[in-house]
């Protein structure tokens, strides 16, 4: 869903549809899940994200790459003892993007409920 998809045409007085506020990078169930988990915790482990979202390592990795390239999460790789460990932390833009997405979804629900 493009960010401009639902925007009102130039000259139109009608307000933009809420879907115009949806961000393609965020409006995806699993990427929203990653942002929600990392917003709730200070940081989340790769293994935790994979299990909580029911994803394969490869798929989660691709979602994280999208979010990281958009500057919405930070990925920290390290070791605990001899075990590799990857932690994911949400960034400030990530929090803003998540809040905007939740607000848009809530507005859509409100519109659907009001018919």
């Amino acid at each position, binding site marked *: *869903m493009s960010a401009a998809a639902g925007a009102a045409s130039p000259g139109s007085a009608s307000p933009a549809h809420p879907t115009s506020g949806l961000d*393609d990078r965020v*409006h*995806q*169930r*699993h990427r*929203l*899940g990653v942002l*929600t*988990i990392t917003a*709730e*915790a*200070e*940081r*989340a*482990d*790769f*293994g*935790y*994200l*994979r*299990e*909580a979202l*029911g*994803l*394969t*390592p*490869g*798929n*989660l*990795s*691709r*979602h*994280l*790459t*999208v979010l*990281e390239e958009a500057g919405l999460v930070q*990925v920290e*790789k390290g070791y*605990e003892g001899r*075990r*590799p*460990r*990857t*932690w994911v932390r949400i960034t400030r833009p990530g929090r803003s993007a998540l809040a905007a997405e*939740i607000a848009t*979804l*809530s507005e*859509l*629900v409100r519109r*659907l409920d009001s018919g």
Partner: protein
Amino acid sequence: MSEDTNGPGAAADPAGGARQDAGTSADPDAQPGELLSELAVLRRRVRAARHAYWFPLALFGLIGCGTIPFYLAGSQRAPTSGVFIARGDIPALPVVTPGAAGLAGAPVSSVLLGFYWLLALVGGFLVMTAWYRRHARRAGVTSAARGAASTGIILTTLVLVLWPVSRLQPGWPGVLFPWFLTIHGMFPFLIVGVSLFVLARAERSWGLAGIAVLFLAAALVACSYDVENVIGRLGYFSGAPWFSVLPNLALPVGVLLLSAAAVLGGRRWQAAR
């Protein structure tokens, strides 16, 4: 649960396409309401996995229990007149013994008790930090508990520094140091109470915030009131030295230990369901 299986950069699973394609909005049919509900469930699950505050409650409750011999020893000691000091040669918190205060009307500092509290508070906050690190490794999600530990250590250091400074000039103690909170010898619990509030914010837990309010109220009563009076009005009285100490101590310690037991019990009960 939380082993690192490759991490970002891992090759895509050949069967991954059967699960979800990461490159597209894979759920065009998802209703906004349904999506919001899923996210709420996810948030609750993460919060439940992250919460680990039963341990600091139990830890500081046990630390409180550890003071009993020191308070009892202090309450049995004959008070020296009008002395209200912490000895300068040992770094100790200015903790006085309630029994001595009650008997003489002039509180007596207990250096050993102050020293115990100093070590126990600093050690307790460090152990708390280590506990949260361990919990994060096991659960896979972390809470920012360092702030609570730092708050506790900073407050302890402030008291340690302000106490001797406040005695440099007559009239300063009331300004620099709330000495009236020390006369029942329980004020270290206030430091624990404040850091529990900070921990509640880090844990985003209304439950812990409620416990912190209850605990701080209990600690304030223990700091400023002779709890033995209440027990006396209920019909029991003892002239033994412990009677002037243990009721005040039991109040904050009881709140901590009972809360820890309730929180841990609740977690186990939920896990068993």
